[in-house]
C-alpha cells in the first residue's frame, strides 16, 4: 500500500524540498547570538568541529571552531551552510498518516505509534518475525546506531536489519578486517603530512573530504610525492606528481603491477613480511604475471605510468595510502582494497609515524555506526553476530536469552529484493533515502510499493518517506546529544544546540516509545542519550572497537578519544599496529592475493560507454538535507553528465545540450558538461538527485560477494543528445528533481 498517496508535484509543494536561503528570523534580526555551541558538522565522516550560533532557540549561524585539532576552523561549503537546516519550511512537526488520493494528514503520537506497533505484530504473526525489516543509517550517532541494533533484535526480534553504510564503507571495512583483524583506519590524519609518498586511490578528496586537502598539501610542501588513481582528473589530481586516469574497475591492474615492479626492483621489506604477516608467498606468486604491460591493459592506461607509480611508492621511507568509494563501489570492491593494502604491507610501512593507511569514510558516522550493531551481521563492539561467545556477551548486556537474538539477516540490497518478492512485508526506515541512493531505482520503487506497512522516522519528507504509511518526525543532529566516530576512529561529542521543533521528537525517544508498545519497555528505560552511551560502553568492553574507557568528559577534555580505549586511565589509540602487532589472534597481518576480474556489466555494442557515479562538494548523500539549503542548491542545482570532447564529438553533443544517459534499467536526461578532465570511454553523473534526475535509475543491482556493496562505479550505458526535458517532473525546482 506504499504507492504515492498524491501526485509528486502536490507532495513537493507541501513538503519540499524547498531551498532555504535565509537564516531563521531573517538576516536583520540575527545580531549577537544567545549562545554558541561547540559541536561538529553532520555532513561527512570528517566530522569537522564547528560552532553553531543560537538565537531565540533557533540555529541562526556558525562560527569556525579553530581549536578543534582535526580541522582548525576549516570547513567546506556544506559545513558553512548546514545551520540553515533549522530554518527549513519543510521541517516535519507532527506525525503524519498517509491518506489515499490526498497525501498526508497529521495524527497524534499515540495513534501513530499504536498503528506501527500493531502492524509490526500483525505482520510478524502472519508471516514470521523476519517479515518485518529495519533499514537504518550511518549518519546517526553511536547512541542511536546502537539503539537501532538493539531495537531490531530485542524489540522487533527480526534478523533483517541493515543500514546505508552498506552503500559506503563495507568494502573497505571487510578488507581491513580480513587483512588486519580490525575495521578502522590505521592512522590519525596527523600522519599524512609526515609521509614521503602518498597514494590516493579512488578518492575525490577535494569534493568528498575537502578538509583532507590541506593535509595532502602539507605533505607535499615537505617534499612528499603524491599519486592519484581516478578516471577523472579531480581538483586534487590537477596538482599531484602522478595522475593515473585508470579505467573504472581497472585498479587491480595498477596495484598488482606496481607490486610486480617493486618485487623486481627489490623494494620489498621481506623481514617485516616474515615476522609480522602471513600470505606473502601467494601474493608474490599472484602478481608474477602482472607485468606493467598486463596491468596497463587491465587498467586502460600506459604501462609507464604504473612503473612511475612503483618508483614513487617503492623506495619511499614513509608512505600513506588513502582509499575511498572509487575503488570500493564495485562488485569486486573488497578485492580492490585488498590489492591496495598489499602495497602497504609489502613495504612494511605501517604502525609508525608517517606510515599507514586510511579509508575515507563518507557518511557522518560511517565509522561508528557500523561498530554498534546496525549491520545485519554485527553486534556492538564490532562483534560477530554468528560467534557464540560474542552473542553471549551481548545477551548478558541486554538481559535476554542468547537464543532470542536473531541470527544474520539480509543486507540492504537483498533486503529490498526480499521486499520485492514478498518475503518481507513491513519496513521501518530511518536515516536512509533509498529512492535516491540505491541502484536500479525502478526496482526499488516497485519493492516499496509492495509493502503492507511502511513506517519512516525522518525530519524531512524524503523522496522515500513519500511512500510511507506513517511518518514519525524525528530529530536533526543539532537537536540531540551524542557521539560519533570520525574517519580517524576518533570518538567525538555532538552537543545539542536546540530542541526539536513542534511535536517532533528525538529519534531515540521514538524507538523507546515503540519498544514499550512491543512489550519490552523495560529493556529501553533510557532517560537520556548519555545512558545509552553508558550501555554502549559496557557492550563494547572486550570487543574490537572497545569504547569502555571513553566518557563524554574525556572526549571533551582530549578533543576526542581514539578507540580502542579499554579503561578509564587509557588515553585511547590514535595509531594502530605499532610494533607490527595486528588485530588477528596470531598478531599478524594476513595478506590476500587478488586476481582481477571484470565488472558485473561490461560495455558492449549496444551500451558502449561506462557510467560512473559519485558526489559533488555542495551535496551530501541523497540530498535530503543539502537540497534544502539554498547556498548549496545554488552552487550545484542539478546533476550533469561529464563527457570528454572526443566522445561528445562522436555523439554529436555540443556544449549547452541535454543528454540522455540510458542503461538496461533506466534513463535520465541531464545537461552535458563537456570537459577534457574525464576518460573518453567514461561518463560521470553525480547521484544526489531524485526522480528523473536520479543517476541510480541507470546503475546496476550487482553487489560484492563479501561486502554486499553495490557496483555504483560501473554500468554500461549509451549516451545521446536529447531535447530539454518537459512535463511535470521537469518543471519541478531542480532541488526536487526538475531541470533549470
Amino acid at each position: 500500500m506504499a504507492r504515492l498517496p498524491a501526485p509528486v508535484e502536490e507532495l513537493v509543494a507541501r513538503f519540499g524540498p524547498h531551498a532555504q536561503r535565509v537564516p531563521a528570523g531573517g538576516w536583520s534580526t540575527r545580531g549577537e547570538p544567545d549562545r554558541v555551541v561547540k559541536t561538529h558538522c553532520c555532513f561527512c565522516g570528517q566530522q569537522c568541529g564547528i560552532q553553531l550560533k543560537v538565537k531565540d532557540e533557533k540555529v541562526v549561524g556558525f562560527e569556525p571552531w579553530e581549536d578543534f585539532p582535526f580541522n582548525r576552523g576549516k570547513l567546506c561549503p556544506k559545513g558553512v551552510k548546514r545551520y540553515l537546516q533549522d530554518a527549513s519550511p519543510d521541517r516535519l512537526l507532527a506525525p503524519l498518516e498517509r491518506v489515499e488520493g490526498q497525501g498526508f494528514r497529521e495524527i497524534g503520537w499515540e495513534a501513530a505509534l499504536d498503528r506501527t506497533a500493531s502492524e509490526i505484530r500483525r505482520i510478524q504473526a502472519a508471516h514470521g518475525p523476519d517479515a518485518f525489516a529495519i533499514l537504518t543509517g550511518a549518519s546517526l550517532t553511536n547512541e542511536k546506531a546502537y539503539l537501532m541494533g538493539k531495537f531490531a533484535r530485542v524489540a522487533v526480534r527480526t534478523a533483517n536489519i541493515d543500514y546505508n553504510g552498506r552503500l559506503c564503507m563495507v568494502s573497505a571495512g571487510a578488507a581491513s578486517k580480513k587483512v588486519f583483524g580490525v575495521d578502522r583506519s590505521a592512522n590519525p590524519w596527523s600522519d599524512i603530512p609526515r609521509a614521503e609518498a602518498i597514494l590516493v586511490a579512488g578518492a575525490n578528496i577535494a569534493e568528498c573530504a575537502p578538509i583532507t586537502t590541506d593535509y595532502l598539501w602539507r605533505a607535499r610542501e615537505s617534499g612528499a610525492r603524491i599519486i592519484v588513481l581516478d578516471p577523472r582528473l579531480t581538483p586534487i589530481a590537477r596538482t599531484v606528481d602522478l595522475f593515473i586516469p585508470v579505467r573504472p574497475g581497472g585498479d587491480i591492474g595498477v596495484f598488482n603491477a606496481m607490486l610486480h615492479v617493486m618485487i623486481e626492483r627489490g623494494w620489498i621489506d621481506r623481514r617485516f613480511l616474515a615476522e609480522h604477516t602471513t600470505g606473502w608467498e601467494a601474493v608474490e606468486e599472484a602478481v608474477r604475471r602482472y607485468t606493467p604491460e598486463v596491468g596497463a591493459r587491465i587498467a586502460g592506461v600506459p604501462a609507464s605510468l604504473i612503473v612511475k607509480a612503483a618508483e614513487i611508492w617503492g623506495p619511499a621511507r614513509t608512505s600513506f595510502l588513502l582509499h575511498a568509494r572509487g575503488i570500493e563501489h564495485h562488485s569486486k570492491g573488497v578485492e580492490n582494497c585488498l590489492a591496495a593494502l598489499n602495497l602497504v604491507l609489502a613495504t612494511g610501512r605501517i604502525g609508525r609515524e608517517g606510515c599507514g593507511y586510511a579509508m575515507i569514510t563518507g557518511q557522518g558516522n560511517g565509522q561508528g555506526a557500523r561498530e554498534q550493531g546496525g549491520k545485519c551481521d554485527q553486534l556492538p563492539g564490532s562483534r560477530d553476530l554468528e560467534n557464540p561467545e560474542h552473542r553471549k556477551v551481548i545477551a548478558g548486556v541486554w538481559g535476554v536469552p542468547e537464543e532470542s537474538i536473531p541470527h544474520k539477516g539480509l543486507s540492504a540490497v537483498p533486503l529490498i529484493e526480499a521486499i520485492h518478492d514478498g518475503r518481507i512485508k513491513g519496513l521501518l526506515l530511518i536515516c536512509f533515502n533509498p529512492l535516491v541512493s540505491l541502484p536500479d531505482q525502478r526496482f526499488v520503487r516497485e519493492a516499496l510499493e509492495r509493502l503492507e506497512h511502511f513506517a519512516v522516522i525522518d525530519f524531512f519528507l524524503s523522496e522515500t518517506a513519500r511512500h510511507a504509511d506513517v511518518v514519525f518526525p524525528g530529530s536533526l543532529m543539532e537537536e540531540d546529544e551524542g557521539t560519533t566516530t570520525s574517519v580517524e576512529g576518533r570518538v567525538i561529542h555532538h552537543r545539542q544546540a536546540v530542541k526539536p521543533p513542534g511535536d517532533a521528537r528525538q529519534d531515540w525517544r521514538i524507538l523507546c516509545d515503540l519498544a514499550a508498545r512491543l512489550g519490552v519497555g523495560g529493556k529501553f528505560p533510557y532517560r537520556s542519550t548519555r545512558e545509552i552511551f553508558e550501555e554502549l560502553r559496557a557492550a563494547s568492553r572486550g570487543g574490537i572497537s572497545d569504547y569502555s574507557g571513553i566518557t563524554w568528559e574525556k572526549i571533551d577534555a582530549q578533543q576526542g578519544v581514539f578507540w580502542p580505549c579499554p579503561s578509564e586511565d587509557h588515553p585511547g589509540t590514535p595509531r594502530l599496529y605499532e610494533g607490527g602487532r595486528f588485530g588477528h589472534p596470531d598478531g599478524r597481518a594476513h595478506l590476500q592475493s587478488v586476481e582481477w576480474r571484470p565488472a558485473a556489466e561490461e560495455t558492449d555494442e549496444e551500451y558502449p560507454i561506462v557510467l560512473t557515479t559519485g558526489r559533488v562538494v555542495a551535496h551530501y548523500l541523497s540530498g535530503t538535507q543539502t537540497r534544502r539549503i539554498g547556498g548549496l542548491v545554488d552552487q550545484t542545482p542539478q546533476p550533469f553528465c561529464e563527457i570528454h570532447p572526443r566522445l561528445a564529438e562522436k555523439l554529436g553533443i555540443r556544449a549547452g545540450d541535454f543528454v540522455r544517459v540510458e542503461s538496461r534499467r533506466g534513463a535520465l536526461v541531464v545537461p552535458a558538461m563537456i570537459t577534457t578532465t574525464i576518460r573518453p570511454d567514461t561518463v560521470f553523473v553525480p547521484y544526489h538527485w531524485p526522480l528523473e534526475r536520479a543517476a541510480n535509475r541507470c546503475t546496476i543491482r550487482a553487489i560484492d560477494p563479501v561486502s554486499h556493496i553495490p557496483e555504483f562505479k560501473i554500468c554500461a550505458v549509451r549516451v545521446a543528445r536529447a531535447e530539454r526535458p518537459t512535463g511535470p517532473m521537469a518543471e519541478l525546482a531542480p532541488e526536487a528533481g526538475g531541470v533549470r
Partner: protein
Amino acid sequence: MAELAFFIDPSRCIGCRACVQACEECDTHRGRSMIHLEVIDRGDSVQTTPQVCMHCQDPICARVCPADAIKQTPDGVTQSSLKPRCIGCSNCVLACPFGVPRYEVAIDQMMKCDYCYDRTSVGKRPMCATVCPSQALAFTTREEIERTRRGRIIDRWVFGDEVVETKVMVVVPEDALEVRVDLVQLGKPVERAAPHQTYDVAALLEES
C-alpha cells in the same frame, strides 16, 4: 607576535566555494558574497582561483571614484563605498585590475571585500581564509608561509605600464618576481592560450 597577513595560493584551490559561502554569512552583508571564485575554463581544466580584494597600496578604485566614496583605513584596508557618497557610477568596477568591486543594483552601491574588517580589526581571521579547506586562502604570518610552503611570495603586479603593489600577497612558483598581465589591444584578435595538454585525460592515455 608577527603581523598576520593575507595570502592567496591559487595552486591549492579546489573550487569548493567554501570561501564564497562563508563570505555570505557575514552580518554586515547578509547573504551577499564580496569575493568571487573564478573558474578558469571548466572544459579544459578543473582549475579555479579565489579572488578577494587585493587591497592595493594605492587603490585604483579609490583614485577613479568621482564621489570620493572609497576610503582606505590607516592600516591599508580599502573599504566598500560609503553609502551616502556612492553615486553608483561603477567607475571602480571598470577600473579595478582584479575585477573585485561589484555594483549592487538593489542597494545602488558598490560593495567589495573589506578584509573582513569587523573580524580582522579585533584579532579574528577573515571568514574565507579561516574556513578554506585547502588553505589556498591563508591568514597567517609571512614566516609561517615561508617555513611551510614552497614558492615565492609576491605583492607586485604589472598590468601593461601600470605597477600595482598590494597588501594581499600571492604565492607563485619560485622563479617569478612579479605577476605580469599583458593587455589585450581592443579591436585585435585575442590569442587564446593553447589548452594545457596535461589536463586532457585523453592525451595522458596516449602517452607512450
